[in-house]
C-alpha cells in the first residue's frame, strides 16, 4: 500500500518548524522516517501534515564531555555508533546501538527519533531510562527538558506535546566503579529482539555490590527498568541471580506475539538477567581494579 495524502513542509529554521506544528494536532515530525514511513505505507498512521526536520541547521551534532553524551535530533544512528568518544564516555550507548536494525537503516534513522518513537522493543529508549538521561524539546513556549523517567507514558507514546520537537538527547556518563553490559536475542541479526537486557552494576570501595539496575526491552509495553540491588547486595551467585530474575519478572509483563510466546520471553528474561548482570559485574570489577592501579 502507499501512504495516504498529506501536506508537506521542509522548514529551514527550528522556529518555523515549531510554528508549522502549532494548531495541527494531526501533524507529525519526519526525521529519518525509518519507523514513520512504514507506518504511513501500511496506513497505520495518516497524519494530515508532515514537518520534515532534515533541513534544519545545527541539529546533527554528537558532543561528548566528561558529564556525558549529547546527541542532536539529526544525528543518525550510524554516526553516533562510529564515534569513539561516545564509546569511551558512555559505552552502553554504543553497545546498544550496534543492535539497532541493520547498517543501512542506521544510516538514515536518528537516535533521537528512536527515543521519542517510544517503542518498548527498541534499544535506545530502554538505555535512556536505565542511564537516567533526558531529552530536550522545543515548543511554542520555548525549550524544556524531559527526564527519561517522565518520557514514556504508554505503548509507542511519549510525553512530548504534539507541537514539540525533540532537539537533543543527553546520556550521562557512568558513575564511578560502575560496569555495563548488554545482550539481546532476536530471530535474525538486525531484527527487533524478542528480549534484551542491559545492566548497570556499581561497586563500593571494597569491591562489593552496592547498586544493580537492569533495563528490559520487549518484556513489557513500555521501556522498563528494574532495581535489582536487594536480591544481589549479598553477592553475585547463581542463587541470587535466579532471585534477581524473579524480582524482575514481578515488574515485567512479557506478551505473546508471532515472534515469541510470553513464557519463552519470561525464560529469556531469566537467562539474560543472569548473563548480563554477571558481565556488568565483571566490567565494574575491571574498572575498579584499573582505577586502584592508576
Amino acid at each position, binding site marked *: *500500500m*502507499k*501512504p*495516504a*495524502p*498529506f*501536506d*508537506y513542509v*521542509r522548514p529551514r529554521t527550528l522556529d518555523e518548524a515549531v510554528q508549522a506544528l502549532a494548531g495541527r494536532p494531526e501533524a507529525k515530525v*519526519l526525521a529519518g*522516517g*525509518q519507523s514513520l*514511513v*512504514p507506518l*504511513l*505505507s*501500511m496506513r497505520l498512521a495518516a497524519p494530515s501534515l*508532515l514537518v*520534515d526536520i*532534515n*533541513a534544519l541547521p545545527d541539529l546533527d551534532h554528537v558532543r561528548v564531555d566528561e558529564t556525558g553524551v549529547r546527541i542532536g535530533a539529526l544525528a543518525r544512528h550510524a554516526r553516533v555508533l562510529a564515534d569513539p568518544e561516545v564509546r569511551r564516555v558512555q559505552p552502553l550507548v554504543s553497545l546498544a546501538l550496534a543492535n539497532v*536494525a*541493520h*547498517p*543501512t*537503516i542506521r*544510516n*538514515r534513522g536518528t537516535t533521537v527519533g528512536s527515543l521519542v518513537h517510544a517503542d518498548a522493543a527498541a534499544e535506545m529508549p530502554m538505555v535512556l531510562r536505565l542511564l537516567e538521561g533526558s531529552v530536550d524539546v522545543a515548543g511554542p513556549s520555548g525549550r524544556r527538558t524531559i527526564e527519561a523517567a517522565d518520557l514514556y507514558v504508554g505503548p509507542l507514546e511519549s510525553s512530548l506535546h504534539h507541537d514539540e520537537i525533540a532537539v537533543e538527547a543527553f546520556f550521562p556518563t557512568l558513575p564511578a566503579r560502575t560496569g555495563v553490559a548488554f545482550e539481546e536475542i532476536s530471530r535474525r*541479526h*538486525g531484527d527487533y529482539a524478542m528480549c534484551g537486557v542491559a545492566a548497570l552494576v556499581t561497586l563500593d570501595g571494597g569491591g562489593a555490590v552496592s547498586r544493580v539496575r537492569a533495563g528490559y526491552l520487549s518484556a513489557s509495553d513500555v521501556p522498563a527498568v528494574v532495581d535489582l540491588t536487594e536480591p544481589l547486595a549479598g553477592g553475585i551467585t547463581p542463587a541470587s541471580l535466579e532471585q534477581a530474575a524473579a524480582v524482575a519478572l514481578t515488574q515485567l509483563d512479557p506478551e505473546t506475539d508471532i515472534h515469541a510466546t510470553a513464557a519463552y520471553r519470561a525464560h529469556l528474561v531469566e537467562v539474560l538477567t543472569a548473563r548480563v548482570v554477571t558481565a556488568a559485574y565483571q566490567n565494574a570489577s575491571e574498572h575498579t581494579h584499573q582505577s586502584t592501579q592508576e
Partner: protein
Amino acid sequence: MSTEQLHRIRLQVNGVAHEVEVPARRLLSDALRHDLGLTGTHVGCEHGVCGACTILVDGTPMRSCLMFAVSAADSELTTVEGLANADGTLGPVQQAFRECHGLQCGFCTPGFLTTITAGIKENPSPSEDEAREMIAGNLCRCTGYQNIVKAVCRAAELAATHSGEADQ
C-alpha cells in the same frame, strides 16, 4: 477530483538532474521507477526489511522505499543504473556477481550491488565475516548467499586493481 498538491523538485540521479512533479507522499523508490523510468531499483517489501530498493544517497546506502522523493531533492542519488564503468562495461561489483554466480532471479541484486559498492569503499578488503555483515540487511530468496559473499570479496579485489590501474 483529487486536489492533491504537487511539488516540483529536482532529483539528481547518477549525475543527471531530472525535474519532476510529485505529490509529497511519492516514495523515492516509486519516483525513480515510475516518474524517471529507472526500473533497476526494485521494490520487494516496501517497509525497509528486504533491501531490494537500496540506493546510495550522497554515497551512503539507504532504503529508497523509506524516503519520500520530496526529501531527496538536496541529495546526489546513485541507483544500480549508475554502477557501470564510464565506458559502459560492468563495474567491479557487477563483474564480481557475474564471475561468482552471485544472482539467480536477480530481483534482490540491485540492492546488493549498491550496498556492496558503498561497503567496499568503506572497507576495501573485507574478510568473509565482514562480507556477511555487509550484506546482512539484504534478503535473497534464491542464492543461499554463499556466492554473494564470494562476490563481495571478489568485488573488493577487482575494485583494488581497478583503482590501482587508474592511479598509474
